[in-house]
């Protein structure tokens, strides 16, 4: 056994151990800097700017008596958001169900198709035009058709969300899977890796940064499509609330829904930002 005496014959110079090696060395940055990284003054400034903007909007609207159907004052939007949240909450629930179910189908099918198709360049050439068509066609245009076929329930919206998010996930992931590094694949093969192992150990992690981007864009497109599909027809969902409240000039509630939607968008962004930081930070 060679390694038996390898251990015995090790000379001393390796004993000088380099220091460090405990921290990962990744500096937190941007949106998610740790609580300690932000100083009091930074937080103070951020809050002050928000207070000034919202406060002057409130003052302007009240002083010049801007009609409520043009722009309600921030205070009444906030009041509507809190007081009428019970009214809005079930609709938020429907929108979230459409988004989650549609996205789960769309994103997983899109990801799988990307993984399979990039292995077979010929199949990719055949499928590419249809995927591009799906990406470029606004899914909202199909919603009336889907409603004709599936009625006014959740189904047409779920299908629209899946059709909007799936291709987005697919084209971005495919870009990731196409980044083949022959040396890294050869490395895995030199250890006797199977095709499946090459996929799981090399291709998939290498595609991860693009997959995360695709998942994020897909989720945001899914949200837009869910809300848009609810505006086209039917009696529930945040999109439906937007049309109802604007038609009946209930502007504080209308803007409360807008606030909820932008919060959802930000949540999607932050979620995938964190996922990217955890699983795809090696590239930055």
């Amino acid at each position, binding site marked *: 056994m060679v390694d038996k005496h390898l251990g015995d014959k090790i000379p001393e110079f390796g004993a000088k151990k380099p220091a460090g090696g405990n921290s*990962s060395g990744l500096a937190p940055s941007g949106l998610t800097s740790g609580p300690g990284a932000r100083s009091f003054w930074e937080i103070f400034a951020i809050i002050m700017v928000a207070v000034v903007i919202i406060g002057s909007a409130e003052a302007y609207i009240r002083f010049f008596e801007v009609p409520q159907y043009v722009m309600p004052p921030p205070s009444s939007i906030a009041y509507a958001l809190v007081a009428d949240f019970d009214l809005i909450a079930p609709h938020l629930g429907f929108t979230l169900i459409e988004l989650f179910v549609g996205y789960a189908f769309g994103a997983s099918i899109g990801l799988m198709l990307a993984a399979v198709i990039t292995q077979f360049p010929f199949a990719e050439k055949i499928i590419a035009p249809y995927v591009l068509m799906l990406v470029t066609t606004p899914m909202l245009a199909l919603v009336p058709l889907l409603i004709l076929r599936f009625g006014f329930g959740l189904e047409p919206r779920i299908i629209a969300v899946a059709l909007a998010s799936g291709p987005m996930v697919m084209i971005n992931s495919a870009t990731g899977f196409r980044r083949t590094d022959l040396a890294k694949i050869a490395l895995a*093969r030199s250890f*006797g890796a199977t095709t499946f192992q090459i996929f799981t150990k090399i291709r998939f992690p290498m595609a991860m940064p693009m997959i995360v981007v695709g998942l994020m864009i897909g989720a945001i497109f899914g949200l837009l499509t869910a809300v848009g599909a609810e505006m086209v027809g039917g009696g529930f969902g945040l999109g439906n609330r937007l049309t109802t409240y604007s038609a009946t000039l209930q502007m504080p509630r209308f803007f409360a829904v807008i606030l909820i939607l932008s919060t959802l968008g930000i949540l999607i962004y932050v979620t995938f930002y964190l996922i990217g930081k955890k699983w795809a930070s090696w590239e930055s």
Partner: protein
Amino acid sequence: MSSTEDPAAKDRPAKLVVTGATKTYQTNSGPLHAVADFSMSIADGEFACIVGPSGCGKTTLLWSIAGLHSLTSGRVTLDGEEITEPHSQIGMVFQEANLLPWRNLDKNIELPFEIKRQKPDRERINKLIDRVGLAGFGNKFPRELSGGMQQRAAIVRALSFNPSVLLMDEPFGALDAFTRDEMNLLVEEIWLETRKTILFVTHNITEAVFLSDRVFVMSARPGRLAKIFDIPFPRPRTLDLLATKEVFDLVNEIKAEIQIGATPANHTSTENVQPASSPSRTPPSEPGQSGDRTNG
């Protein structure tokens, strides 16, 4: 100068035998002959280098020996067994370390075990990590390490599953001259300790002379075996050796051999002919220093 430690390679049993290796690629502009009728026999425990001009098919040949490429004709045998696919007795060190950037050092080194579905031999890995001076860097990511340290990790990874043959494909080509000298010393030391059979591909003649028992010179494409040089200097060799006239003459002789086999107009470069002038043996524990020497 003759080696006392090293019996002549011919007396030892052949470990790795390449017979009539030929590799032809079909391209749009007709067949491209990368390697033509290349034969070599490497003894058990021998350190052999293949040198040749860029694009002469060295890497193609090495990848074929590793079982990563098929040959158009000819065969490669390891202990008499034909190599047609990657073999567990062959470890490979690639150009520019080839670590996976999404894995830390420990996870990179455990990759062969993961792929072979074995429990990592941590004891052996830790010894090797200590040996190459990477202790304490296990949770660092490749981008946090210098090129020399990355290549050390790649050597540990290749040796981790204890192959009997180590194939090295221009492993230090991207390193600065100082780091390259350190790595060459380290490779020689590891070879003296483990007595693996090492086949090392490089375009740096000085490096080849410093490391090898025998240097196989390959001609320009299509790569043919031009000549075999026996390198007689005793082991362990030190960097002082590189400043001696014997090495200088040998390097020039090999250089001339490469140019005979090549189209003269294409080879006006004088890289590799100056002997390294590093005066002393530096311990390879401080990688990443940048030098501005450009002797190749």
